[in-house]
């Protein structure tokens, strides 16, 4: 128990104190204690910084796209898998679609470049059929759909696990009764399946809303350079590039702290909404 406790003390609570950086004009060789205390100046600078707001806007747009396109995808896939009766096929498909979850973003990005890049597989085919090349990689206009597609490729299968578990809990007798009353496939889906797994859907939706600003870091870090900051900057990469590329550690820490605080507020309010809706939410009270 002791090493574990020490770990949390040093790397989590120690780092919390590190957030004091947000209030100083940090000079590396002076250290935290001797750097000049500037109060909220870093936050003021942030609020007037168009690059910061650009990162906020990109983050919100990408998070919105993730919510609309990535959130329902595993549910659809889970419904498809659940409707299979042959266990061999089902197992096989499951093992295949879980796999990408375990690949790192470096590999996923490399695969997408290999497939969709200028000299990639898809453009090779396009050429063979006499069609023009499509510019997906390195094209700022295609960047946001691309990152969402990558997320779906990587995580959609893994995310079905929880939906599949929920689907298997739905009472068969309800389907039987509905079918006897003449309900077709769509009506059974709408009136039996979806209500049956509603708590899970609501829970996952809340979790997602609570982490709305967490669009992911590594994926964007790897690909920002190819499309430039205007299209590719999100909050996390903004923190990274401000801190490590420009050396403005205090300012970067302020932006990071800002994001963290908004995140806590989002989780908290999402939970409040859940409780109000009569669902359990992420934590109980």
């Amino acid at each position, binding site marked *: 128990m002791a090493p*574990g406790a020490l770990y*949390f003390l040093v*790397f989590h609570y120690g780092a919390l104190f590190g957030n004091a950086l947000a209030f100083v004009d940090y000079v590396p060789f002076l250290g935290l204690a001797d750097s000049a205390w500037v109060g909220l100046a870093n936050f003021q600078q942030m609020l007037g910084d168009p690059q910061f707001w650009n990162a906020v806007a990109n983050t919100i747009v990408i998070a919105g796209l993730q919510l609309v396109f990535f959130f329902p995808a595993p549910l659809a896939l889970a419904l*498809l898998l659940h409707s299979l009766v042959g266990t061999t096929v089902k197992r096989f498909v499951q093992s295949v679609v879980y796999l990408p979850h*375990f690949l790192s973003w470096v590999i996923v990005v*490399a*695969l997408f470049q290999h497939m969709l890049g200028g000299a990639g*597989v898809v453009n090779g085919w396009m050429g063979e059929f006499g069609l023009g090349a499509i510019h997906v990689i390195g094209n700022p206009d295609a960047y946001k759909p691309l990152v969402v597609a990558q997320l779906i490729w990587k995580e959609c299968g893994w995310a079905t696990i929880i939906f599949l578990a929920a689907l298997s809990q739905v009472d068969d007798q309800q389907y039987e009764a509905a079918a006897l009353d003449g309900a077709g496939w769509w009506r059974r889906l709408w009136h039996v399946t979806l209500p049956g797994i509603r708590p899970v859907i609501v829970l996952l939706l809340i979790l997602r809303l609570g982490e709305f600003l967490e669009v992911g870091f590594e994926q964007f870090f790897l690909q920002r350079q190819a499309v430039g900051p205007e299209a590719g900057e999100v909050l996390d990469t903004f*923190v990274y590039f401000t801190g490590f590329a420009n050396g403005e550690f205090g300012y970067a820490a302020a932006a990071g702290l800002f994001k963290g605080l908004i995140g806590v507020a989002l989780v908290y309010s999402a939970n409040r909404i859940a409780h109000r809706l009569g669902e359990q939410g992420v934590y109980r009270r």
Partner: protein
Amino acid sequence: MRATYPAWQGKPGPGLRLAKAVALVVIVLLVLFPLWTVVATSLASPQDVIANGGWVVWPERFTFGAYSEILDGGVVTRALLVSGGVTVIGTALSLVCTVGLAYALSRPHVYGGRPMLLLILFTFLFPPGMIPLFLVVRTTGLFDSYAALVLPFLINVFNLIVLRGFFQSIPAELLEAARIDGAGELTMLWRIVLPLSKAVLAVVSLFYAVAYWNRFFEAIIYFNDQTKWPIGTVLRQYVTGGADLSGDSTVTSAPQSTQMAVVVLAVAPIVCIYPLLQRYFVKGVLTGAVKA
């Protein structure tokens, strides 16, 4: 053996079954085909790859040239060793610490257990930012040390909660009986709790191992010494466009088949252990999701 449809559902029409089959095949191909062309390209001779415009679906002349080239003691060999070492040692350390803490937190009446759990869960809600964590790593002198790839990630809260949840589901009578027989806490953990938890331990180790193996970003900010880079970081340099912040591209653009061979080597260990542990996934993920 034909599986049977539930009576109320009836057999779906041929159109629907065809649509389902097509959808499944497409989904499986979407996942496997990119991986397949990467393997094929890595095994093809450089001339074939160039002739075909940078990739092949089926290597006409098999060659392990790309592999023997990068495994010949260069950057990639060293990176694979680094990643392997970090993964093995990191996973072992993480397991010991996570099990210890999870067991302590799973027992009732441990002094300070409740507040401690809350403090830990709070870090889940409010994770340390990148810059503050960087400062801690520098202050603790972990710069340019392999420990920087392990210690900041020693315990994953999700894994901790999964294990704690599982430990709590072990009947208290078992432990009570052992205590009456004079067993101490460590004996109970070693002799009773751990043998019962093999499946969930397998899942947690897999999660840790994959996380350690895939880690690349930390090496960029914590290491000045590029010879210590793990495979993920090297892969990024090699394949996904090197010239970037981290500056001097020590690696010049390599031929496609070599690049793809690096990708294959970075994926291979995961694909190898994946089937062994796969049947435990669902159990592990769901224990955590329900208890959290």
